[in-house]
């Protein structure tokens, strides 16, 4: 297969970037999208041009490192999947493909297609955990958890932390990411003790990081490679309302 590529090139955080055109030929349909970029890079190196910087690690959709917007969609046209799970057979021969980094104010560009998502780490640091000191845990089966709740918790916990939700959102909101963690822990008995502190801390950090608000466009859910449901956002909003009421009442 043959493709025309338009790829965002930007030297560093401070420099100005722009789209650059490339062509690539003789790509097998079983090549993954990132392998196609590997092939392009190999060609660039052989012709003395610096390869396109892009991030990836596990290349099987779980580490959340990929951060590509392909043809205007976070992670590309095939959902649910991370960019590393795209195969060239999903594109048309001869097609022009545009590749950009996730565009989110709170994710500054490092180089070309690589971005800085440390804002997401800081949201978790603001309360996305259970304070369980190593060694002080009770016997695991001493607290039965209804399968239904455990399953719901798992659905929320499946988030891979890629940030595609924020990239797809017209307001650059990170609510799907944040609500997934809040919901995961709120569904479990272990998460109860810190439930209020958690939601207050994480939501406030989200604002500090400059992420926008949710206006129910559901774009986040549509691109999420882990199929996290936007209903968790509603759950987070309820949790937040209750927690802030309690806070105001001095509880």
């Amino acid at each position, binding site marked *: 297969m043959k493709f025309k590529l338009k790829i965002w090139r930007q030297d*560093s955080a401070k420099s100005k970037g722009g789209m650059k055109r490339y062509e690539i030929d003789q790509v097998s349909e079983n090549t993954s999208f990132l392998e196609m970029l590997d092939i392009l890079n190999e060609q660039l190196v052989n012709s003395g041009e610096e390869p396109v910087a892009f991030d990836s*690690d596990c290349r099987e959709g779980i580490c959340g*490192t990929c951060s590509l917007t392909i043809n205007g969609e976070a992670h590309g046209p095939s959902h649910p999947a991370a960019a590393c799970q795209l195969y060239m057979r999903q594109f048309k021969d001869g097609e022009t493909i545009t590749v950009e980094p996730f565009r989110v104010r709170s994710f500054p560009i490092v180089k070309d297609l690589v971005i800085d998502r440390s804002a*997401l780490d800081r949201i978790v640091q603001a309360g*996305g955990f259970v304070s*369980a000191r190593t060694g002080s*845990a009770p016997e*695991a089966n001493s607290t039965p958890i209804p399968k239904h709740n455990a399953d719901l918790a798992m659905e929320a*916990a*499946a988030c891979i932390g890629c940030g595609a939700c924020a990239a797809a959102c017209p307001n650059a909101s990170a609510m799907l990411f944040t609500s997934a963690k809040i919901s995961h822990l709120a569904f479990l008995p272990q998460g109860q003790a810190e439930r209020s502190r958690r939601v207050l801390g994480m939501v406030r950090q989200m604002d500090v990081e400059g992420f926008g608000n949710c206006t129910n466009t559901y774009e986040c859910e549509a691109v999420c490679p882990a199929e996290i449901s936007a209903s968790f956002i509603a759950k987070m909003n309820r949790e937040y309302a209750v927690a802030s009421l309690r806070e105001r009442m001095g509880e």
Partner: protein
Amino acid sequence: MIGSLESRIPDGPLAEKWRKHQNNSRLVAPNNRRRFEIIIVGTGLAGGSAAATLGEQGYNVKSFCYQDSARRAHSIAAQGGINAAKNYPNDGDSVYRLFYDTIKGGDFRSREANVYRLAEVSNLIIDQCVAQGVPFAREYGGLLANRSFGGAQVSRTFYARGQTGQQLLLGAYQALSRQVAAGTVKMFPQTEMLDLVLVDGHAKGIITRNLITGEIVRHAADAVVLATGGYGNVFYLSTNARGCNVTATYRAYKKGALFANPCYTQIHPTCIPVSGQHQSKLTLMSESLRNDGRVWVPKKKNDHRAPNEIPEGERDYYLERKYPSFGNLAPRDISSRSAKEVCDEGRGVGETGRGVYLDFKEAIARLGENTIRERYGNLFDIYGKITGDNAYEKPMRIYPAVHYTMGGLWVDYNLMSNIPGLHVLGEANFSDHGANRLGASALMQGLADGYFVLPYTLPNYLAGQIGKRPAPDHPEFLRAESEVRGRIQHLLDLDGARSVDSFHRELGLLLWDKCGMARNAAGLQEAIERIPQLREEFWSPNGGVSVLGKGETFNQSLERAGRVADFLEFGELMCRDALARDESCGGHFREEHQTAEGEALRDDDNFADVFAWEYQGNGKPNEPILHQEPLHFESVQLATRSYK
């Protein structure tokens, strides 16, 4: 040169060693802990859990990883599960049985005492993870569910869908995040360790490169912990993440740490077969699939019929035939070799003939498609995305691929290497899996090391080190820094013609061929001659590797070039180890040593020991010195492994 290897295994009965050792180890009082700086490289299950726990105990921890977030360490990709001896299913499991299965699975090439400790703390891990909110699978009554994995006849594997590693790692990452917020752990993401610094023979710091800015920094500490994962990517194609590498441990090796059993690599039987030349990685299909999937190939050679056109009577369910009591759940090394055998006979399936079927038809008929979807849905989805095939309708095609490395830096019972102060955890050390690791036991080992072993053994070292932390401008730091800078500059100065990947691919193919699923003396010797030539080509001032861009910026070619340069030396060490180990055991199959039925033939009289290699400085990577640590078996009888 190093004297004899002191494993520091406490004496006394097996079941009492760890308790006794804990009671006899020195402690650091809470008010003294904040006087210590601990460097932990790696944020996977091993490093992440260690950093969180030590931070919580009041030490100052610096935590490093090359990814942009601690949560992306390669542990995130583990699918199938984690073992523990809880015996919840009441099927006869116990600490002893988990210990015995692990020793036997490792083909009697691991330390009894370490493995027993691992089995002992396994139960604490499950308690800890549940307390953190890890959403393990549960039964309708609300209690934890279990499944089986290879090499065991009990159900002792805990899991969170097909994403167990992700959930365990997020548990550790969240605990780590809590410490970051508390100020006890300082995170250094996108920071690569490029050298270890020794002061007066003790590990007292590291040199790092900030991958975004290219800044080189000296970090001094009271102790250094490496939890940098495995080196499977030396083969280029493996199930490991793209960034996995040997650099941290290999740099430590060059500073005097012994590298143990480098040739022990695990080839996992169930991966999606290689499809094309530009493939960048191989994808694992979790071993848990073998609970319900049946492995087969056609009985006839070169049978190109579609799988559903081949009648039952013309199929060879070769694992069930050869190993009736374990069947499809035979250990990994055995299952992989059997797959290679049937493909070598010309009975392999798929375009390349390097594949076997993993068939769910019977399980779907027995349990319904929904149950299968619930158990393995995400794996079937992954398979579908990569191959374009629907495994609910036709059998998966699978083939073995490099997956895990049992070898690693040599450590004693305290998980300390022969360099005082240098501790090594998780896949990066050699300690618990012998010549073959059983499924679901790497996650167990990583978390055991980080949550429950190092926090007890590190103080034993630190107690004697109060006030001994050097300043980061100590001459040894300056020297190491200038070496690192020199090496980077050297790579950038090469006016090469070939991409880093092309060298890596060539090395990988060579190793897969000569030091993969089957090895022999002639092939290994050939590789030992070829690798230095490839290395020379790589470093050749013209026509060698091409590293464009600058050192002071984000430069992925430079990162990879440094890692591949280390693989190009390390690969040779692997082959030397494989050549020196003139027996077959576990994943190390020397064609010269097999039974009449083609099973691995151990030589306990001559090789029941750990091989630990010492680097011989001065740019002579070709002449490492071999040290041997005899393995003493007090509680188990050395037996021929039988899964029949």
